[in-house]
């Protein structure tokens, strides 16, 4: 015996602790690294550091809503108009603001004063930003549930997808800098979609989606897919369309009505539904938003601009009224110089047509994956052809698409341009020099990381693959770099403050091309599967 001779051995003490401590159970479930929680923590630290960053008028909008819900009774919520930022979200969101305002009043009572316009003390900023960070935990929970609900074979893929959504630059830019509560809403949406995986979860999925609609009505764009899927898979027999499950119909109908009743009932009782609806759906807006969202109409506007230049040579007639507004595309009202104007009816019917096409497939093949595909296509159709679409609505496509992007390589091929275009299209939201490196570095980092990871994880497709636009996609992704550089730097050096609309026009046209390409690619996948 050498120097290891120790007291324990002399006295022949058996190590006590080893017997008492049970061996850690050898779990069969493989752990993927980094875990969702670890990423949440790191992302949260970055988001806390962003507290003093630029914030848009949406910050004041939400502060005003805190003030409205705190200082007024519910029956005056939708009438209050001291500030120009009136309450225009559905009642559950108002209730959420009311809940927050209870806390807010304790922290800084000036924050919840309706007359205190543009109030942004440090406690106000910290409180509102913190409320976004905390409410994002719902997204974490939803993604955790989503991964756990995935069958074992695809869990690695779904873990990667969950991380990509959790760390999405969309949420960083829109929620944590620009200021909104999207991550929480998408948390509810993902919960609802994940619940729809099993037959037993369909009812709760429907209820949750109804709740989501009462939080933010933009999700109405996705409602047709929900309606068809729940009708087909829950209310009717999967095998036989003509055999309805009456009990299921009643359960679903009653609970959805209850959700809506709880939200809108009180306002109906006070006779305020008309006022509420006029707040929720302001139909007086133009075709394109201030900055063109990257959809069909952006390309249409771009072509119109080009035609103005070549019109004299082609002997086309130009509408002089539309020509004068050089900053067209920046102001809300859009009229075209050469091409015919677009009516809301046309937008609506185009959207509807593409909805129906997606929903027919879902009706014929009501599986979960088709359902998510239909959600994505509904998002696409509404985004591409909708009237007055916000660029933020691109998340309505990206998030559902992410969930099935790793189904196989052909899905991934159409996801790639969407991710690139969708996130770059959000850049004009932040125009301050300080936030420029944040949005660019984060988005580029995210794209490199997740497109690389997805590329390694996506399985080969089971059917013959159509190589439609692969080379084009690579070229497309590469163009984004000079575009970002031009928009941020070169344009300012060349023109100083003139032609401000040029970078915006280039960005939205570029992004529109990407979104439309990915839409075509995805349609091919969806319809051929």
């Amino acid at each position, binding site marked *: 015996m050498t120097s*290891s001779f120790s007291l324990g*051995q002399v006295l022949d003490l058996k190590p006590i602790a080893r017997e008492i401590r049970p061996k850690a159970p050898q779990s069969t479930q493989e752990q993927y690294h*980094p875990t969702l929680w670890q990423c949440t923590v790191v992302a949260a630290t970055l988001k806390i*550091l962003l507290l003093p960053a630029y914030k848009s008028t949406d910050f004041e909008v939400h502060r005003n809503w805190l003030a409205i819900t705190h200082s007024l009774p519910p029956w005056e919520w939708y009438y209050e108009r001291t500030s120009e930022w009136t309450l225009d979200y559905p009642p559950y969101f108002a209730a959420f603001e009311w809940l927050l305002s209870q806390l807010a009043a304790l922290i800084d009572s000036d924050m919840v004063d309706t007359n205190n316009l543009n109030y942004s003390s440090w406690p106000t900023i910290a409180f509102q930003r913190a409320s976004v960070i905390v409410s994002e935990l719902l997204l974490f929970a939803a993604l955790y549930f989503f991964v756990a609900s995935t069958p074992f074979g695809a869990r690695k893929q779904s873990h990667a997808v969950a991380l990509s959504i959790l760390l999405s630059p969309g949420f960083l830019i829109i929620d944590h800098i620009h200021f909104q509560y999207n991550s929480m809403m998408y948390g509810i949406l993902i919960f609802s979609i994940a619940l729809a995986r099993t037959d037993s979860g369909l009812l709760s999925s429907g209820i949750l989606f109804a709740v989501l609609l009462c939080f933010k009505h933009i999700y109405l764009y996705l409602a047709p897919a929900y309606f068809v899927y729940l009708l087909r898979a829950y209310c009717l027999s999967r095998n036989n369309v003509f055999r309805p499950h009456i009990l299921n119909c009643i359960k679903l109908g009653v609970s959805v009505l209850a959700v809506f009743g709880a939200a809108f009932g009180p306002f109906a009782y006070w006779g305020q539904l008309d006022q509420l609806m006029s707040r929720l759906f302001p139909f007086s807006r133009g075709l394109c938003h201030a900055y063109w969202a990257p959809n069909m109409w952006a390309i249409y506007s771009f072509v119109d601009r080009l035609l103005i230049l070549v019109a004299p040579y082609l002997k086309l007639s130009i509408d002089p009224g539309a020509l004068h507004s050089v900053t067209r595309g920046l102001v809300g009202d859009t009229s075209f110089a050469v091409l015919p104007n677009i009516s809301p009816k046309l937008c609506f019917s185009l959207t509807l047509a593409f909805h129906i096409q997606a929903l027919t497939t879902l009706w014929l093949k009501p599986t979960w994956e088709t359902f998510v595909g239909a959600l994505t296509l509904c998002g696409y159709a509404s985004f591409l052809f909708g009237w007055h679409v916000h660029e933020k609505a691109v998340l309505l496509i990206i998030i559902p698409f992410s969930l099935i992007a790793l189904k196989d390589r052909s899905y991934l091929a159409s996801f790639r341009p969407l991710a690139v275009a969708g996130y770059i299209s959000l850049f004009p939201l932040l125009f301050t020099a300080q936030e420029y490196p944040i949005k660019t570095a984060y988005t580029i980092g995210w794209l*490199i990381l997740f497109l*690389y990871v997805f590329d390694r994880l996506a399985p080969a497709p089971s059917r013959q693959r159509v*190589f439609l636009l692969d080379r084009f996609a690579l070229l497309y992704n590469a163009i984004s770099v000079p575009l970002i550089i031009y928009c941020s730097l070169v344009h300012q050096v060349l023109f100083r403050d003139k032609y401000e609309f040029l970078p915006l026009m280039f960005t939205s046209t570029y992004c529109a091309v990407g979104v439309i390409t990915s839409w075509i690619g995805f349609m091919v996948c969806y319809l051929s599967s």
Partner: protein
Amino acid sequence: MSAASTPHKPRKKKRQLVRSNTLTDIAKVQPGSDRIDPEFNLVSFLLPARGKSQWISVPLILIFTGLFRWCVGIWGYSGQGIPPMHGDFEAQRHWMEITQHTPPSMWYFYDLPYWGLDYPPLTAYHSWICGKIGTLINPEWFALYSSRGYESQSLKVYMRATVIVSEYLVYVAALIIFIRHYSRSQGLGTTASNIALVAILMQPATMLIDHGHFQYNTVMLGFVIASLSSIYAGRPLWSCIYFVAALGFKQMALYYAPAVFAYLLGSCLSPRLRIGRLLAIAIITIVAFAALLAPLLAGTLYDLYRGFDLPYRPPPPFLAQRRITLDGKTPVGAILLQLSQMVHRIFPFARGVFEDKVANFWCALNTVFKLQKIETLIALPRLSAYMTFMSILPGMVILLGCPKPQLLPYAFASSAFGFFLFSFQVHEKSILLPVLPMTLLLGSSKGLSKEYRAWIGFANALAVWTMFPLLRRDGLAIPYTVLTALWTWLLGLPIFSVSCYYDPDLPNVPGRPLAPDELRTPTKIFHWWSYILMLFWHLLSAFAKPPDNKPDLWIVVNACFGCLGFGICYLWCTWKLILESGLLDDYFEYIERRVDAALNEADKRVTKYLGEEETITEEKEDGSADSASVVATPSSGEKHSKKKGKGRKR
């Protein structure tokens, strides 16, 4: 990619487990399964990158660590909105202003009371370049005189950008190359070296001071790392050049100078005398210094030639005291005046022994024993010089006798700690210097072991904690909290994890032989109490009001405890340096043999005694004792080192 050429095969490769010798430090591999449990959180983030291209992982690391840096930058800087003097931000801006608008001969003389230039020339050149580019963007930022105290969002963004760009060009580039050379020489795997890279880049103290408080420390530190890296790459002459650059950027690089000097000299003396190498090093160093000063002196001569009236008033005090007058009208006189003024500005011996409260020896001593009393016995500058010399002596002697490159980080840390603790005129920000080489040790072969992780984490946590009073003044309390918490969480340190201090797989019995990288109990107790004390201090300083007659009480407590902690870190680095040098190995072997003999004697006696008592269990007993002795052999040396190192071990 086309349909014809590639069949649609999944690109998934066969899972390969590359087991570098450090994998056991960063993860637990369950025997018989593929399951890998990371030891700390940072490992989780980099494990998936195993076996993947460095061309993906390194850029991603740089992007995301850069994001954190920039996000710290959107918070306050030193002296924001505090006229008339503002702070370090205004000082740096002012230097850009004066280098733009005054000729080089004026730089060290221009309006000294308002942030006169007091860094070496490379800083001046750097300011000149930053100022030139900035003036192109907006001339108001650096307009002469009228821009004093100028504050705007765009200026802030520009200045922050200069920090981050300078840092990426020098510090980050040097660090990546350093980690590559260093980890290769230490036999470290790619994943482990990436982990070390992230941990070093995310050091909270450096990020908060450079990107929050506002300074360009990382440029100087980057040159130091480049100098180290050149030594590992076997290019000592480049190492001299980089080190001169570091000195030329900030005189604080002198903290490392004894180690560099001793190493370079030692490498010329042993294993055999190499005069050629010595001469080459000397000449290159002189040439580098000459090149460093050339623009400044050439500018001076040019101004003299132009007949520019040189403002050599007042003359540098140390010349005035010795009644030396130089004629600024002659070239030689002008150059000497310029140089002496530069030295006077860079080394302000006229100031006190410490400014503000610093966690060093003098400040701590001053709280218990007023320094004025010592002043009557011996001049403080001289005393501090002696003590500094004593503290850096062990490192220098070892490097001279045994110039091995792998000792350099220890020697750098030991030397810088010596300077920080005992030298004259120390700023609290100088703690970055000793902490950096200590953190670089994360890239060594033992760097991610529990012992090193615990000590490096402790030094970093303590360093950033001692700077808290400064950071709070700059409005950086929240970034401080967030970044420190993030770093400790990533590295699995208290208060988030006990992984460095406790291993549930080891039996919890007294007298168990130590695992190879386990800390000794006194160390564990010291670390834990330090963390608890730091947290408690935060509570105190946040909620408790100090007594009226001692308004600075919390800050003094902070400095005194910081001094104690840094003193112990200094001892750890020095002790590790001695152990790693192998100079005392013979001595340890001798002791070991003596102790072994004594133990054998005792052993025989006990077995004899047991043999008489129970003959049946004897065989079992022997078997278990044998296996235990096999396990314990590698750590047997540690037992004895305890007597020397007091709670420290190899």
